[in-house]
């Protein structure tokens, strides 16, 4: 992680078998991400955004080429190492929130800390703090079905942020939200990025999200067609 670099992607190729042939989702991608970036991979459906995000999140492995995420190279990414990396250092935010409906807001946010075996008192403090970040301190006992879409996504952000990860990967986080809630969510993430220096990488084609990004990487047919920093 020289010079605060947390992700290095070198000539990445990802192919999937389809029928008798092969579909190449990512073709020769080379990118770097530094700590504290607020960047997005944008492009139309099928351009390879989610595939790239999955590889960055160690949910998938490259067919060719190499990645190094938070000091862990894809070549030595065993399932156990990948799980540990996600558990300790990576947070995910999904389009569909994916909260566990039988647990309260507090318990949903607490779950990543349970996996990290954080002691109860510390856990409680961290969960309350995370819920305060997203403005949901008054909803700790509510259950996901009682929340609005915006509130649900804010709980998902709190869940991703509670362990203070180095990297948050957000796949179309505003796709199910109206404009007001989208801006609220994005401002919350922007604030966390600023305050905690957490690196955010989005996969999106939503203009509202793009408007907040400080770096925009455009993908088309599995290739990077542009990579530009935006002055704010």
């Amino acid at each position, binding site marked *: 992680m020289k010079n605060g670099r947390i992700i290095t992607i070198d000539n990445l190729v990802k192919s999937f078998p389809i029928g008798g042939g092969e579909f190449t989702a990512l073709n020769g991608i080379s990118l770097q991400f530094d700590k504290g970036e607020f960047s997005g991979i944008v492009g139309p459906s099928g351009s390879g955004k989610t595939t790239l995000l*999955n590889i960055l*999140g160690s*949910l*998938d492995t490259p067919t060719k080429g190499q990645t190094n995420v938070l000091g862990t190279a894809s070549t030595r990414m065993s*399932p*156990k190492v*990948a*799980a*540990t*990396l*996600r*558990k*300790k250092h*990576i947070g*995910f935010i*999904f*389009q*569909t929130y*994916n909260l*566990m*409906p*039988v*647990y309260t807001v507090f*318990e949903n946010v*607490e*779950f*990543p800390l*349970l*996996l990290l*075996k954080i002691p109860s008192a510390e856990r409680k403090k961290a969960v309350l703090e995370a819920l305060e970040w997203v403005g949901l301190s008054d909803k700790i006992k509510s259950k996901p079905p009682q929340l609005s879409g915006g509130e649900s996504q804010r709980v998902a952000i709190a*869940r991703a942020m509670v362990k203070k990860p180095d990297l948050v990967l957000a*796949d179309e986080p505003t796709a199910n939200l109206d404009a007001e809630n989208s801006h609220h969510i994005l401002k919350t993430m922007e604030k966390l990025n600023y305050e905690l220096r957490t690196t955010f990488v989005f996969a999106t084609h939503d203009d509202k999200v793009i408007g907040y990004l400080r770096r925009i990487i455009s993908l088309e047919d599995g290739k990077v067609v542009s990579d530009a920093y935006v002055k704010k």
Partner: protein
Amino acid sequence: MLRFYIKGLFRDRSRSLMPILVVAIGVTLVVLMQCWVTGILGDMIVFNARFATGHVKVMSRAYNENIDQQPNDLALMGTEQILLDLENEFPGLEWAERIQFGGLVDAPDENGETRTQGPGGGMAIDLLSPSSKEVDRLNLEKSLVRGRLPQVPEEILLSDEFATKLEVEPGEAVTLITTTMYGAMSITNFTVSGTIKFGAAALDRGGMVADISSIRMVLDMQDATGEILGYLPSGDYDDLQAAAMSAAFNDRHSDPEDEFSPVMLSLREQGTMTMMLDIMDYFKGLIIGIFMIAMSIVLWNSGLLGGLRRYGEMGLRIAIGEEKKHIYRSLIVESVFIGIAGSVVGTAFGLFFAALLTKGIDIGGMMQGSNMMMQAVMKASITPDAYYIGFIPGIFATALGTALAGIGIFKRKTAQLFKELQA
């Protein structure tokens, strides 16, 4: 962590209450089926014991060797002493003397000349002693078609078919022409007190039942009997106890060199009973086995569907950083917990219903004319295996279903589970 999962399990009724109910219903049916089949097949043993074999039977060695002929010339002698010995050595058991006999039954006209006659075979039992349980044991009261049971030694019961063939009505006389145990001719008059239905074609063609005291006179068998049947105090056949008794008795009283010495055989050791008991065990195993496999498939599917339904949740847990094997283990633990809870509830209900059925369902009212061979009451029997048999499909099938569904977690690439999470 475990507390977290248990909390989720209890709150999500589709993961706890429903699967527990499915397992409990399956296990209830398995336990009930086990008790019911055991009860019905057990009744067949009970019936054989009551009618022919006892739980143990004492005969002379020679009589046993020629038992197909029921040879009264080889009958057991000195039975009063043998009965005393049996009562002393095996207190609590009920002993019943029986003599199988045969002969020509003659129905005379008003002049005493033969009107009709036919060959008959009969069973002499203790019909008249107040302490005798033979009338109940052989279901005689309910098997009566016409007339009544004998009240004096000179009365006899004929099968209804035999009586019709002989054109004899209750109250009329018949003459039994036979031979004594010493080979002499014997002619004795009896009054037909009633007619009965045996329920077996061979017996209904020419069957008779008479009091043993009169048949002893007829066959000149004072202090002798064909067979002494013993019944265990519990009323249920216990193979081990019966075998131990017969071994002990034979050790003390039986002499292989003396063909007239007594020999005791357990129910299993008599005639084709070994084969019959083995076949019954086989069929019991088969019926219960098929039912258990069917229930296992149902519970396995339930576990499988429960697992498949949760692929999205698996994706989320993987994304948050839980290892696949940890998720797999938690699913198995959860299914074992559900299996145990469902099996306990199911076994309790199964035993409860089986207990209600141990008194039996009386189908006597549905049967047109009861008979000696028919069981009017069909009942369940609770045996020790009923307490654990439901746990086999309850736990193993549920866990196996979950385990198979969980294999999908390993076979699917992490990214695929992740996709299913987002679907």
